[in-house]
């Protein structure tokens, strides 16, 4: 599939009218790669045919899908806000009371381009109860390419616009040409490692907090159950698991219980299960 001049011009004008994003000439590959799935879903043989049909019918929901496909790939910092508020207000203070070594271990289990583990570390720095504590952060992902990006810690202007308070931006980042680079003080706290959640985990130790957000939705029930069982094995008995807003353990692995925490919820291993993790 390739995209012709007319189709590119139509999409470019559509995206410019609906958002502040300007797709410069040369971005044809981007438009094409993002629209191929939509073209296929709607039964069109090419992106050009899909766009020509779109330009004729101007179906509002399809127009919106096209704009979203071209504008919403950036992962947000502090995504969904509430889990990070819960970390700062209840989970981290609770751990600070029960851990004698002044150290907590956190696993971001699908870290993608790194926004999540860095957001967790920034939240830890904003938690007075953890002042002077060490946060040992493991960030894993299936994609080596994503891990390289996360490790490098450089983000585009569009990426730092997503959910990052301006005060946090100036505190933890510095300009690197057109990009922004996260401070070495944060990057040095994270161990990045390739890991496929579907396969048996390598030795990881025990974690006080696990972020496994918006990952389980991609798996079938049996795989979800297996992953949640293996996460229990690497969880401190009183550890806290964060899932995505649309995900839950109920009916998948009932050894977990959902505990309301602030405006969100966390999952903890049920008391009676804590000594007999299979």
């Amino acid at each position: 599939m390739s995209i012709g001049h007319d189709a590119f011009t139509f999409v470019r004008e559509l995206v410019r009218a609906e958002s502040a994003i300007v797709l410069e000439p040369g971005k044809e590959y981007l438009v094409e790669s993002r629209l191929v799935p939509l073209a296929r879903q709607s039964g069109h043989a090419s992106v050009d045919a899909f766009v020509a049909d779109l330009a004729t019918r101007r179906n509002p929901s399809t127009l919106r899908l096209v704009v979203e496909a071209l504008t919403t790939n950036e992962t947000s910092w502090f995504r969904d806000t509430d889990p990070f508020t819960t970390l700062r207000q209840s989970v981290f203070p609770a751990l600070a009371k029960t851990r004698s070594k002044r150290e907590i271990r956190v696993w971001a289990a699908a870290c993608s381009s790194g926004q999540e583990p860095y957001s967790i570390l920034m939240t830890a720095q904003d938690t007075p109860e953890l002042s002077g504590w060490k946060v040992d952060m493991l960030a894993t992902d299936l994609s080596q390419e994503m891990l390289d990006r996360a490790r490098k810690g450089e983000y585009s202007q569009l990426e730092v616009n997503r959910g990052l308070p301006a005060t946090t931006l100036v505190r933890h980042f510095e300009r690197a040409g057109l990009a922004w680079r996260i401070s070495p003080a944060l990057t040095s706290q994270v161990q990045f490692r390739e890991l496929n959640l579907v396969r048996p985990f390598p030795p990881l130790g025990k974690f006080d907090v696990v972020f496994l957000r918006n990952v389980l939705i991609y798996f079938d029930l049996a795989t979800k159950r297996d992953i949640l069982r293996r996460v229990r094995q690497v969880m401190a008995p009183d550890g806290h698991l964060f899932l995505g807003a649309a995900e839950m353990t109920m009916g998948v692995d009932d050894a977990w219980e959902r505990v309301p925490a602030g405006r969100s919820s966390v999952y903890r291993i049920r008391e009676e299960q804590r000594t007999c993790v299979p």
Partner: protein
Amino acid sequence: MRALIVDDSRAMRRIVGRILVDAGFEILEAGDGQEALDVLAAHDGDLPVLACVDWNMPVMDGLTFITEVRKRAAWRAITLMMVTTESEQDRIVRALAAGAHEYLIKPFTGDALVEKLDLLGLTPTTVGDLV
């Protein structure tokens, strides 16, 4: 809830305005800082809760506008967000020091603006409809 958009670009006012209308705001507009001060003075009894302010404008720039707003106790409740192409770190620091509550760098997506509203406690009503 009312929002004031201060930008010398009509196209930019339209784009920001559309996102804010979807988020449940009524819109006031001004093409420069001085005109924005006049708009606020004319709406003293029913002030906007939010002002999205461009930096570079004729007559009065956004930084001066923000400084002027922060001098007036009666306008303290207005949340000020700089929305600009100026992306240098020291610019952000200057805007925050002058009294801006947030800073959004152009270009941006609708989602990015909505997330800023969320950070500012100005949660929109129809996030799902935005681009």
